[in-house]
């Protein structure tokens, strides 16, 4: 009995130790706003922000904006997958393709691609097109690089034995190379998902009439500060859930790995 109680309190203590700072910060945030120590216009109380988030979700159009953002990020990400993975595989298999693509990637990788927002606007207009294009160019690189590095690591003997057993090139690609590269592809995919959301929100802030980014900058310009904070929480939740889903997918697809 005593032992059990001791164990219970130890477990409780462990839990508490790993979250007390977050609770403390929340309490300070709430207290500072409620007591009027800081201007609640600049920092609305945490509980008000949450209540406001709920109000935006049930009465406002939060869900519509979330879906707009998700659709743009998803479309750009899908395009990047469809083009990036084959590009990475080709780069790993062909010396010529590698020597042409390598300098382009080396140049393109560190370039802050948000600088291209005006170009995307000129080419694809203010609607979905420009955001999808921006997400695409930003998500493409992590996918190409990850696929390339994964495909390089594939044991040549696997390819040889598949070929000696009479597999066609396409079959080798889809049954041997692609599954063997999957762990790296998924690592690149995780980064690509994070980057896509960052880019879509930023592009929506700069020029859009819908989406979470638009919602946030609109709230700032109309000085609805509570909405700014609630949107920030909505954005973080979307990003957090998306990342969690990628991890679940990874565990699902890679049962044989690790």
């Amino acid at each position, binding site marked *: 009995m005593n032992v059990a109680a001791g164990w219970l309190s130890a477990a409780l203590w462990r839990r508490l130790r*790993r979250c007390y700072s977050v609770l403390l910060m929340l309490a300070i945030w709430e207290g500072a706003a409620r007591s009027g120590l800081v201007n609640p216009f600049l920092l609305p109380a945490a509980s008000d922000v949450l209540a406001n988030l709920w109000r935006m979700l049930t009465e406002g159009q939060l869900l519509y904006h979330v879906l707009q953002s998700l659709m743009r990020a998803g479309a750009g990400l899908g395009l990047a997958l469809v083009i990036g993975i084959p590009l990475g595989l080709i780069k790993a298999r062909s010396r010529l393709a590698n020597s042409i693509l390598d300098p382009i990637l080396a140049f393109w990788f560190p370039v802050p691609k948000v600088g291209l927002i005006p170009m995307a606007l000129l080419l694809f207009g203010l609607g979905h097109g420009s955001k999808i294009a921006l997400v695409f160019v930003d998500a493409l690189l992590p996918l190409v690089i990850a696929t390339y590095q994964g495909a390089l690591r594939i044991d040549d003997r696997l390819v040889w034995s598949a070929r000696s057993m009479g597999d066609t090139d396409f079959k080798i690609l889809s049954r041997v190379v692609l599954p063997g590269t999957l762990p790296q592809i998924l690592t690149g995919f995780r980064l690509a998902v994070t980057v896509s959301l960052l880019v879509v929100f930023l592009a929506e802030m700069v020029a859009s009439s819908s989406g979470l980014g638009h919602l946030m900058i609109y709230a700032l310009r109309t000085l609805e500060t509570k909405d700014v904070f609630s949107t920030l929480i909505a954005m973080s939740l979307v990003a957090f859930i998306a990342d969690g889903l990628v991890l679940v997918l990874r565990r699902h697809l890679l049962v044989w790995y690790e």
Partner: protein
Amino acid sequence: MKATAAQRRQRDARIGSVVSLILLIGAWQLVTATGLVPDDVLPQFGDVAVTWWQLLVSGELVQQTASSLSRQATGFAAAVVCGVSLGIVMARHRMVDDFVGPLTSVILPIPKAALIPLVMLWFGIGDIAKTIIVFLGTILPILVSTYHGAASVDQVYLWSARSMGDNARTLLWRVVFHAALPEIMAGVRMGLIISLIVLVGAEMLAGQGGLGWMVFFTLDSGAYRVTYAAMLTIAVIGYAYDRLFLMLSQRVLHWAEQNP
């Protein structure tokens, strides 16, 4: 004399980069000169190059670049100093870890773009606000990778340093910091890339000069050649910065095993 394999690879890479650069510029010039893409969407490369040169000579470009880079450098340097020291202390002291660790994992998933309106609300649209945006956007990746690097330092190093009489402070600096350096540098590179993204985004949204402002506000007035010239400058700065960083990190990490 026959070239070694490494020299041949290096030569191939150099030829490849020249060829692909020529191909890109050629394709750009081709689609614009033939009128396939209208001039008010994508101006000809030659025109953009001329505009770029004029902006450079007039000092306009230098001024905007300097104002962008000074914001970036201040915020980024502060983030490196704070992120690295906090990361190391976190990895070595459980109490600090218990306090900062959970906060980090709550803040980490916030998309960095969301910081821009928040900081604009609190600090306005001036230089200080942009510096703070860069600082906040870059400190976490640096902090997290420093923490991982410092937490996985081989215990044997610590024991031997201690047995040779190092005290706690020199131990942190001489052993933990240096052993964590490869991961610190990886985090700093990530931070560098993010710093330029959030800076350009903030300048587009808040204005007040800088390359991001230049790109976006010339778009309104229809001076597309200036827009493209400024965009090219941003791209070149991003690339040059990264190259510079890789050179530095090779020099600092010559003792560590290089990742392929």
